[in-house]
């Protein structure tokens, strides 16, 4: 890789990193304002407005908010149940804020798990997510197939005593590709997903179908291929009897031979990573 390409890549990555930072800042700002009685709809609107104010015009998907046992997707049967409801936040309840804004043409997709007050169980889940972050990066660098990695994550969850809740996402994905999106004046959403982003995902899917890969990282046969270069929004989601926790952030996969460079997390300065590092000190 020439230095020109590298610097170009870096500039591009910087764009993604900025929007990811912006999203996490939004999550932290909204989380700080959550108090007992706030509904999921209100929390979703708070995220939307915070991001609109900072120049976000389009979405990969509009912000979600899940409270209480909805963080573990208890009794989720149809995808419509992902949308925010009038569930009210109570003391001790876990919550998840999940948003995917497009900013200056760059997309981020993040998930922020928190809890209103003390909840030792939720702390435990958050702490245990660390092993998943390390496992995923390690195995992507080893160029295992995505399906294999998915199954290994699954096994780790079972060993930890948790249920795999990303299975509830559309196609059961643990991750999906994200990309740049052309900015348009008119940016409608379809079932909460930005049409521009869906178009990108669909064309990736089509291309991938011809070349034997998929932009969706699932437990199914179409993910039985080594990681493809690009940006993956990875979102392992643990569930334990009515309490759920996840993180979601961008994993960069390149075609570099150097294992360190072949895959890396876009940014290590994120709330959940900081939390683990502080805990370790």
């Amino acid at each position, binding site marked *: 890789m020439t230095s020109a390409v590298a610097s170009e890549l870096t500039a591009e990555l910087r764009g993604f990193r900025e929007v990811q930072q912006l999203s996490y800042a939004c999550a932290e700002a909204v989380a700080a304002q959550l108090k007992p009685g706030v509904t999921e709809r209100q929390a979703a609107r708070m995220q939307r407005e915070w991001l609109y104010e900072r120049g976000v015009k389009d979405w990969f998907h509009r912000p979600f908010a899940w409270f*209480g*046992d909805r963080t573990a997707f*208890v009794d989720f049967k149809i995808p419509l149940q992902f949308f925010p409801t009038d569930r009210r936040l109570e003391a*001790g*309840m876990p919550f998840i804020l999940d948003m995917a804004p497009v900013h200056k043409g760059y997309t981020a997709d993040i998930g922020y798990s928190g809890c209103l007050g*003390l*909840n*030792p*169980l939720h702390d*435990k889940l958050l702490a245990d997510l660390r092993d998943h972050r390390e496992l995923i990066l390690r195995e992507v660098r080893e160029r295992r197939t995505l399906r294999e990695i998915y199954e290994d994550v699954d096994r780790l969850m*079972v*060993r*930890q*005593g948790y*249920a795999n809740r990303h299975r509830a996402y559309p196609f059961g994905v643990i991750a999906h590709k994200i990309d740049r999106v052309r900015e348009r004046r008119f940016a409608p959403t379809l079932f909460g997903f930005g049409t521009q982003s869906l178009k990108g995902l669909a064309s990736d899917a089509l291309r991938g179908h011809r070349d034997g890969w998929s932009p969706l990282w699932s437990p199914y046969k179409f993910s039985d291929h080594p990681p493809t270069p690009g940006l993956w929004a990875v979102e392992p989601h643990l569930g*334990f*009897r*009515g*309490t759920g926790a996840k993180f979601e952030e961008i994993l960069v996969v390149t075609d570099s031979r150097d294992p360190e460079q072949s895959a890396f997390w876009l940014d290590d300065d994120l709330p959940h990573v900081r939390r683990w590092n502080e805990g370790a000190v």
Partner: protein
Amino acid sequence: MAGAGLEGARERRVRTGGIELCVAELGDADRPTVLLVHGYPDSKEVWSEVAVRLAEEFHVVLYDVRGHGRSTAPAPLRGGFTLEKLTDDFLAVADAVSPDRPVHLVGHDWGSVQSWEFVTVRRTEGRIASFTSVSGPSLDHFGHWIKSRMTRPTPRRVGQLLGQGAKSWYVYMLHTPALPELAWRGPLGRRWPKLLERVERIPAGDYPTASLPDDAATGAWLYRDNVRARMLRPRPDAFAHAPVQLITPTGDAFLSERLYDDLGTWVPELTRRSLPAKHWVPRTRPDQLAAWITDFVRTHEEPAARAPRPVAETAARSGVRPEYAERFGGQLVLVTGAAGGIGRATAFAFAEAGARVVAVDRDAEGAARTAEMARLIGAPDAWGEAVDVSDEQAMEKLAAKVAAEYGIVDVLVNNAGIGLTGSFFETSSEEWKRVLDVNLWGVIHGCRVFGAQMAERGQGGHIVNTASAAAFQPSRALSAYSTSKAAVLMLSECLRAELAGRDIGVSAICPGIVNTGITATTRFAGVTDPAEEKRRQRKASRLYGLRNYPPEKVADAILGAVLHDRAVVPVTPEAHGVHALSRLAPGVLRTLARWQPPA
């Protein structure tokens, strides 16, 4: 001289309202005071077993209610037993034994009936820190209960009225003049101890005391002085001013469980407990009673313990059924094979209900992990133990350790099992041995060592054995596994019959196809190539994953089986199907058995 079974008690007489009460005290007088009130026909000695257990931690006080035991009777008897006078007695005793601090009240039967009066009248406010009610409703609440059912008699409510009406036969008898006195002083008094032993399964010993015929004859006035008055005109303001723990024996011949349905409106701070036992729980379940009283007193004695525990929240959120929490709170539950699958889910379900959990598995790390998570979701305590259930000596050591350190197991779940599939002729004798060692001998060892402890304690318990739908469904591909599980099923049925007399229930659970780790470790007889074995394990796991029946539902079935003392419990729809077919059309199952699953 102290009464029977109350060795070491300090005794004193308390004078009040022209009579003298005999009061016994045990334990350190500086500790919180627990006041035990006996019922009818009893004297304070009914509490002897519970009192000695409580005395290790508390200042325990018992007294003979007026006219009972060695307290004197009022003269005349008529009008001498009103609840107002009984309240005077209580206040006199409380002032004598604990003048500065409120007491923790515990009542059984009529002791509970009068204690309800104590906690619902204004003049005792500040004198009662908590009240544990066992088998005795408030007469006022009872009166309102009847009234509300008479004024709106839906079929269900009429049924409840008739049910309790039939259980109250002895109350009507006690209202006849002279007859009860004659019976108690005559044949009934003589036969009472044998009757209790046979019907109520009360262990023979120094209870009931020699004063019983007189206690019972005089005590009839408790009913005559109060029941009619309160049933006709129940007080409208009988609200409890102290936290109440309600312990309901589910096998009570005299009181319906439904009596307490509306209790929440009368008691702001109500904790419910249920116990599979008959009426005289202070005699038949002293351990459990003492444990629940201790827990309740501690909670309301130490402000730190009153802080809301995460238990309630987690429980509310994940929807743990209240009847599970009422029944299993504080009980000791041991689960084998608890590092994964059904065992782990069962341990968690019991933990959520507030039970103390011992998670046993060959996999030490997995067992410890189960215990750790169990503590986080509500188990007051949980321990992981690394033991191979097929190892008899290890199991005996475990049983000794559990008994010494954690207590006697209340619920035992023999769940550990391994899979083995393949033709009979390809199954080596080592493989046969291994499967029978774990699946059958593991259960036998568990039942022997822990069942023996339960039986010896003589206070009930429950054993759950995980069998399988393969216990009804023969298959050419599962001869060893099915044999082991059919044996577990029959063992459970036999043991159920044998232990019924000791109040120990035995259930066999037949899950069916459940998404657990059993497929990942299943042996395939005749397959020697490790890669081929891996492939088949993966394939089986994938199929079980597609079926995706969660082990949590099996755990729920296990808790339900213990709660309702069910004998054989198929869980998945296919398990129900083969269970029904095995009885209606076994030929169909035999045909199915010939099917050879593809490799």
